[in-house]
């Protein structure tokens, strides 16, 4: 997007296209552009460059977490449930998060809560071995709630202060699978530990990401979001609607398939990438 001097109809069109092409969605795009038009009519933005900057500020503002939020990882024993639909990158993200937090001084235990999919447990066990983290696991077909229960018991007994739980991929439309997730959440809550839910979203997802987020949040809540596969060409624009609706911030982004390919979320860099 060249920094134009004049604000023309073409420029408004280009801005709209950039947002739509990035999966920001029609509704959010229209609201943003309406706000910008109002500001422009009120005398703001003398040049195209200023308009573009105004848009980027509005976008970054949408991603700012509300004030007074509790930290994602308080100092007490915290159980992090990693959830999301099939194939978005949960298992890989669990390994990345465990590795990241372990390197920052936390005592991390992983829990292989995917007892359904072929090699769901084996996949995380290999990651755990690679990053030198212990991992609670069970036979395929076992009850994921039991794994979470055992992991919390192990954490208490052996002094771990973060348990990162991998769960099976599930479409939010499957009532029985969402109920299973509620049951897992209840087990965590009943243990009197700090429970956190991280929703994992694939950057290439379209508007269905908002439906996914709504469903998972209404079932078990969502404390933070991880957007994966931002090393692709998808820009992850659906995240604006998701964050706005859930009031949960993006905490990390996945930038590749290696365990170190995790970055703390930088909203300004994320927004700038939409216009790159």
């Amino acid at each position: 997007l060249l920094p134009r001097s004049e604000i023309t109809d073409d420029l408004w069109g280009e801005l709209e296209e950039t947002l739509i092409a990035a999966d920001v969605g029609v509704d959010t795009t229209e609201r943003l552009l309406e706000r910008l038009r109002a500001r422009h009519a009120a005398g703001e933005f003398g040049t195209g460059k200023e308009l573009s900057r105004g848009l980027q500020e509005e976008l970054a503002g949408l991603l700012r977490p509300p004030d007074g939020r509790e930290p994602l990882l308080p100092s007490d024993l915290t159980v992090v449930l990693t959830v999301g639909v099939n194939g978005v990158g949960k298992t890989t993200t669990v390994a990345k998060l465990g590795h990241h937090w372990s390197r920052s001084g936390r005592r991390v235990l992983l829990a292989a809560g995917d007892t359904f999919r072929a090699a769901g447990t084996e996949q995380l066990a290999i990651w755990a071995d690679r990053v030198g983290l212990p991992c609670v696991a069970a036979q395929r077909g076992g009850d994921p709630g039991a794994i979470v229960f055992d992991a919390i018991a192990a954490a208490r007994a052996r002094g771990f202060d973060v348990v990162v739980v991998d769960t099976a991929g599930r479409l939010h439309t499957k009532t029985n699978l969402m109920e299973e997730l509620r049951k897992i959440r209840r087990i965590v809550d009943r243990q009197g530990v700090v429970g956190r839910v991280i929703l994992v979203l694939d950057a290439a997802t379209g508007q269905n990401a908002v439906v996914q987020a709504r469903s998972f949040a209404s079932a078990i809540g969502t404390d933070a979001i991880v957007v994966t596969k931002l090393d692709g060409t998808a820009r992850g624009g659906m995240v604006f609607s998701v964050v706005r609706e859930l009031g949960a911030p993006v905490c990390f982004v996945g930038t590749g398939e290696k365990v170190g390919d995790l970055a703390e979320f930088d909203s300004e860099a994320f927004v700038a990438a939409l216009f790159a």
Partner: protein
Amino acid sequence: ALSDKLQRVFDQLGRKGKLNEQDVDRALREVRLALLEADVNFRVVRSFLDKVRGRAVGVEVLQSLTPTQQVVKIVHEELMALLGEAGRLATAPSPPTAIMLLGLQGSGKTTTAAKLALHLRKQGQRPLLVAADPYRPAAVTQLEMLGRQLDIPVFARPGVAPAALCRDAVAEARSAGQTHVIFDTAGRLHIDEQLMAEVAEIRQRTNPSEILLVADAMTGQDAVKVAEEFQQRVGITGLVLTKLDGDARGGAALSMRDVTGVPIKLIGVGERPDALELFHPDRLTSRILG
């Protein structure tokens, strides 16, 4: 639904039988919204609407007493025409027929490979699954477990590069009398030079009768770039859309079909090995239109 939104537009205009082109444009804006919300790529939407507009400003709409029905009918017909007929799986002139599955990370290739093998076996064929993903932790184990579950053989050779492995699998299948060889490849980005070269090499060494791009039904605007790149770099003969048992509208299917001209051959409708269906253009059309 789209027809309700269109009805509202035409009701507001209130003059049936004497519509003008601006009125049609107002209606087409609703269609544009519906398609964008369904994740159809915005460029595909634009060219699609040009086609629809060409028909919608004809007398069939302008002088119709039921313009809503007419516009919905045109949109429906044009979408069906674009999606095309369900493609059938090709067969090699002499066995085994090689089928390569490729696509982005997590799209459902490994699961689809197992489903396809089961589908072929139910048709009396003898498929061989090939574990051609040496990167993802437990990827080979995943396919082997699926193979055991279905009693379908899996060809795996740790330490052998994918292209050589696939070529060896074809030779093995030929001597064992298997009819189909299904390559489950690693997930890859369309912008990863090295990995795109890898699948181009697998293709070169095994000359598959089918190269199927496996794509997630919830993919958004990015679907076009992905499909174009795989088409250009490797060449694809068919599309597989997975996770259609969810509630994603599936507009990515329309975009990929439009930019590659390649038929949609199969759809994934669940996690179990029997959750594979032939694609029905009318069902996907209704789904995209919401």
